[in-house]
């Protein structure tokens, strides 16, 4: 079903978050004001990225990253301009110029750079194509999205949106028990680590802010990043005296309360 919308309502970071959590495979197509971007994913990991129509070939990427000398680059342009990236990659590995890891690392950096450029897009529409995969002749990578999501979240500055995301600082935080997330593999800033060290269902966000000497905006921004990356979730503070209990049931008696709920259930069933 439809996975489409507008960048004004969904940031690129939020989309990456969705793709990461849902472990999606397919291509996110973003139509910006002047260019179209394609980000391809496999099982929730970035496989390939491209902005605009012209494809930047492997030779150019490696040359720009100083992994190929100008001489090598020229030679490739002259003698091997018609071969695919995959073939070129094999050639370079077999010739002993580069290792497979060198090539994959450079591509990852290049694709991550494209995602960084996308973070600055605020206008545009997007849609996700389940069937669309990177072109066959291109080399694809498997880049975890968590770090990109954290980096993207750091750029969210708008107070109003942060207020929406985290309306109450009286709630607490706990680590998600989502399998596959390992805090050690995520590049947290010093500030983020400080907050992380206080995460515990007993501490409200406000208390964490006090302990780390952060103002409302700073703490919201950091909590937002951690939420986006799926590392933590909001919960009610443990051990806090429950909110002054307004009368919910017309009776104090436990059994009567239960009977009342059961009566409600039968009545609704009979509607």
């Amino acid at each position, binding site marked *: *079903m*439809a*996975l*489409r*919308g*507008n960048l*004004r*309502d*969904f940031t690129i970071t*939020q989309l990456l*978050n*969705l793709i990461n*959590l*849902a472990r999606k495979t397919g291509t996110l197509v973003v139509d910006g004001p002047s260019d179209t971007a394609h980000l391809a994913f496999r099982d929730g990991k970035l496989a390939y990225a491209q902005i605009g129509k012209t494809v930047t070939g492997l030779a150019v990427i490696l040359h720009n990253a100083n992994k190929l000398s100008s001489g090598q680059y020229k030679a490739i342009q002259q003698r091997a301009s018609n071969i695919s990236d995959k073939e070129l990659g094999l050639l370079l590995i077999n010739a002993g110029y580069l290792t497979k890891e060198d090539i994959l690392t450079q591509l990852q950096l290049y694709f991550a750079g494209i995602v960084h450029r996308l973070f600055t897009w605020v206008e545009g529409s997007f849609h996700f194509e389940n069937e669309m995969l990177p072109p066959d002749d291109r080399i694809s990578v498997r880049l975890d999205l968590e770090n990109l999501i954290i980096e993207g979240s750091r750029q969210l500055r708008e107070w109003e*949106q942060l207020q*929406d*995301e*985290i*309306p*109450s600082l*009286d*709630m607490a935080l706990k680590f*998600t028990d989502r399998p596959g997330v390992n805090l050690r593999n995520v590049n947290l800033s010093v500030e983020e680590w400080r907050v992380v060290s206080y995460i515990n269902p007993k501490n409200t966000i406000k208390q964490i802010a006090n302990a780390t000497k952060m103002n409302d905006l700073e703490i919201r921004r950091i909590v937002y990043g951690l*939420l986006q990356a799926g590392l933590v*979730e*909001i919960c*009610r503070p443990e051990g806090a005296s*429950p*909110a002054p209990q*307004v*009368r*919910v*049931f*017309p*009776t104090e008696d*436990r059994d009567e*309360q*239960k009977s*009342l*709920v*059961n*009566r*409600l*259930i039968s*009545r*609704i*069933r009979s*509607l």
Partner: protein
Amino acid sequence: MQTVKMVVTGPFSAGKTEFIRSVSEIDVVSTERKISTAAEKAVKEATTVAMDFGRITVDDDLVLYLFGTPGQKRFDFMWEILSEGMLGFIVMVDSTRPETFREARSILETFRAYAPTPYVVAANKQDKKDAWDPEDMRHVLRLDSKVKFLPCIATEKSSVKSILLELLYSILAEMERGEK
């Protein structure tokens, strides 16, 4: 006569009034107004300004009241008042309007902070062809797998019934947990 209440909340035009209308035995007492701003008018004609109010009589001495909150932010001073003493709440989300998902999440967090009562979230308007897949919405709304997130068509009574029942099952489960 004993009374209990549930609250139906969610962003502007999510289908709160429709939801209550589908099961209430009285005509829903709606405080609807014709919409003034052009942007909102593009979505619909009338909006709830204070609350909706529906009723289901259970038996001779028990009545369930359903309160719908106004969806527009400028009436959110009503939320806390309406949420007082609720047995549980339902957050409605319009599956066809991704631009409202962020607000839905914010409303959910706000209500969660008011009271530790059980709740369910409804992915409404699933009959429309541009509706988002509930699984995608679950991630965007950041609902963990323990939260009941149910597909819904507020115009269909059977769908509304099943959502109310799921909420009641959660309330019962919560009571049983509390006893241990």
